[in-house]
């Protein structure tokens, strides 16, 4: 996107907005961090951060809150990115949760997510004293996110108060806060899933290979295809992993992320499949199948 046209395309405008938001945070915050979840939105964020501060490196660390249950290919990809781009990568695990043996199989998705993600994130933010954290959430992901600000204010207890958020006018963001309080900042707020994929395609941004269809060992549980990524997965007596051509539309903890059967092994094919498909991307996340307002509850508690 180097050509200076007479007018900007929608992706050029979204890109400029995200870059401007990132620069604003770096100018205003004392100790910013970028949350890095290894998924496609994180890949886009990393790419935008490299653009925003070029020729300097992104002037903040990247934080991966590790539940220890990510796909192996995700860990490999994370480490490759950190090395290639010389990132200051921080990996944080809730050691207390680990000691208590919290895992998604015996404790279920809700407890696992709460302890290993939400709690862990709060612990990490406190430990390093970050006062601004970039997240890749988009408003189109879920109904209650439609009202989220780009700069989302959090109390010293990391709580999000939907009734006490600052109005955002023009491109004027108010990042001022008292000690202990923090901001969650969402540079991709105005992007849709299609925008993200189009941008990855046009900018040739590397993403975890799991997004592309390939033969992978899976078992079917409650209508969801779960990939058997390592030996920690307890199999039922009648379960036998079988090789199917699958891919993932969204990436999380492997036991909580459903695969879809697909032949899409190129970016255009993925986009085509997404455009023709009939289910939204969060459908694959076991975490969202709870109560209607589950996402909102999680946000109030400090989830991203």
């Amino acid at each position, binding site marked *: 996107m180097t050509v200076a046209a007479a007018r*900007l395309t929608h992706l050029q405008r979204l890109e400029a907005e995200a*870059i401007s938001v990132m620069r604003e945070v770096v100018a205003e915050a004392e100790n910013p961090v970028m949350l890095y979840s290894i998924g496609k939105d994180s890949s886009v964020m990393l790419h935008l951060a490299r653009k925003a*501060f070029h020729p300097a490196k992104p002037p903040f660390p990247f934080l991966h809150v590790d539940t220890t249950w990510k796909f192996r290919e995700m860990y490999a990809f994370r480490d490759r990115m950190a090395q290639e781009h010389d990132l200051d990568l921080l990996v944080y695990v809730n050691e207390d949760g680990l000691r208590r043996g919290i895992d998604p199989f015996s404790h279920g998705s809700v407890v696992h997510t709460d302890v290993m993600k939400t709690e862990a994130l709060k612990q990490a933010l406190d430990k390093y004293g970050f006062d601004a954290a970039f997240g890749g959430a988009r408003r189109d992901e879920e109904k209650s996110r439609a009202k989220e600000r780009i700069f989302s204010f959090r109390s010293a207890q990391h709580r999000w108060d939907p009734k006490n958020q600052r109005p955002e006018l023009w491109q004027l963001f108010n990042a001022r806060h008292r000690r202990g309080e923090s901001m969650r900042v969402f540079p991709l707020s105005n992007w849709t*899933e299609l925008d993200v994929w189009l941008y990855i395609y*046009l900018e040739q941004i590397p993403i975890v290979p799991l997004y592309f269809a390939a033969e992978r060992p899976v078992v079917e549980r409650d209508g969801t295809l779960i990939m058997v990524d390592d030996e920690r997965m307890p199999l039922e007596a009648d379960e036998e992993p079988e090789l199917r051509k699958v891919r993932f539309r969204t990436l999380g903890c492997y036991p909580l992320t459903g695969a879809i059967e697909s032949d899409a092994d190129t970016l255009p094919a993925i986009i085509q499949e997404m455009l023709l498909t*009939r289910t*939204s991307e969060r459908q694959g996340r076991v975490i969202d199948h709870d109560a209607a307002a589950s996402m909102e509850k999680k946000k109030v508690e400090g989830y991203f």
Partner: protein
Amino acid sequence: MSHASTLISEDILAYLEAHEHKSLLRFITCGSVDDGKSTLIGRLLYESQLLFEDQLAALERDSQRDGTQGDGLDFALLLDGLAAEREQGITIDVAYRYFSTDKRKYIVADTPGHEQYTRNMVTGASTADCAVILVDARKGVLTQTRRHSYLVSLLGIRHVAVAVNKMDLVDYSEERFREIERDYRVLASQLAFDEITCIPLSALRGDNMTERSEAMPWYRGPTLMEYLETVEVDQERLQRAPFRLPVQWVNRPDLDFRGFAGTIAGGAVASGDRVVVLPSGRESTVERIVTFDGDLERAIAGQAVTFTLADEIDVSRGDLLAAAAAPPPVGDQFEATVVWMADEPLLRGRTYVMRVGTKTVTATIAPLKYKLNVDSLEHVAANQLALNEIGVVELELSQPIAFDPYAANRETGGFILIDRITNNTVGAGMLHFALRRSANVQWQPVEVDRAARAALKGQEPFVVWLTGLPGAGKSAIADVVEQRLLALGRHTYLLDGDNVRQGLNKDLGFRPSDRAENIRRAGEVAKLMVDAGLIVLAAFISPFRADRETARSLFADGEFLEVHVDAPVELAARRDRKGLYAKAERGELANLTGVDAPYEPPEDPDLRLDMAALTLEEAAERVLAVLRDRQLVP
């Protein structure tokens, strides 16, 4: 997410090529739920077929349970967001919705029509290219239509579509539509729109939404979707403005590179162009326009870029880079329209943090000229602005800024006001022009300065500001402290709240706006005295934190000591020598701080005197101890 395009299944690469070049349109919808606003947006999302099957299934389920359309789909339910709101049946804010056609991507700012509408609508309109104003065909142009149109026009939106909805309920009557169109054009003649398009439609039935309505063959204009696909994007207007770049961040990875990063707020720039840095006024030439994807020859409004300049001149965050041939004006006193967004009212004399472009300054509210009645557009005299009120004010800034009138450029003429204590965004404003007196009345430089005056007196000048309830002992403590200082050979003055109110401030009462002005003047007088080299003891109830902060902001760090004379109200009432509490009890005195007017204690004073435990002498001794501790007195 099946878009209508058959290219998706037949030629995905051609589809991607087309979608690469889509433009972006942001618009705001204005109207109440009764006008069918949620149905209209829901219908746009539905007709652009951006709904997934699981979302559709949820919609069908919700329509059965909560819907208002019998067995039909209730599109309004697509827009529901937060659980608390869902329970109360209201939306409380701006929600952003996204849909897309083959020509454009759309961001819709959806704002509710209830009493909070001003704050929310102004927020949503600030980034919109155009507005869709809903009118119920049965009700016609109402007061709220006027209100919505005014706000949209105030925020600088030039293009408006009037969606005359529910045409099915007036038998698709051309006569009715023409009548509403006439009424609207009369209303709009007072406003600053470039273009108005009236569209008769039924959001519920889909008439003239994307498909031309067969029920209204008499209508030859665009459908709503056709309108949205062709209306001018405001960015294109900004391309014609002179070059502006608010410097957001200075990029210095090493000693060889010094780049100025920001988003172009108007016009275009090419390497080799002469630019001026404001407010300093220094000029240079653009050397390189640096991006991750390689240097650019030319960059245009809306692009986020990094520049280098040919000369080593001082440029920092908050400066404005502008075309040297067409520089914006610079000023430190302005007339502006302000929309108030906080529960705590805007008061004359109060100081707020002001953000304009990338610049942060402090702004003091000088006279509030008038407020606007948004229904009648009449000017009303006022001395404060409450939540959701709009007024025209004069602002005095702590330092000069470069700006454009808001009407010329929204990015360099729009600002927000931030409360200095809570850090909340409390107001939004639009600059009109710089006041001439800021150009004509300049600070008169004099040869004998503060340091010289202080040296002659052999002392460090400073202010001790005592705040607390009436009867807490402020003046009495100040009196003792002053006697001690006098004995030490110090030159002092005691500024007492009651005494000042008998002279300088005798025109002021006890409303919050008067109290703010009272403290503003007291602060300014104390500042002059400190400049004269004096030690000032200021004893003022000064009940509001914001006003004390304003006073503090006039002084350098360490020059202003805030002392909280903390007496419980019962004790203050007992010690009260002026009989104020007794009068208040008898109902003869209103607005007495601590009784029926609020007192906001300091959160972090330099000294707190617990008057339940200390005598006046002891309290004065504590004050002197702090002064000695800070080496302000021997």
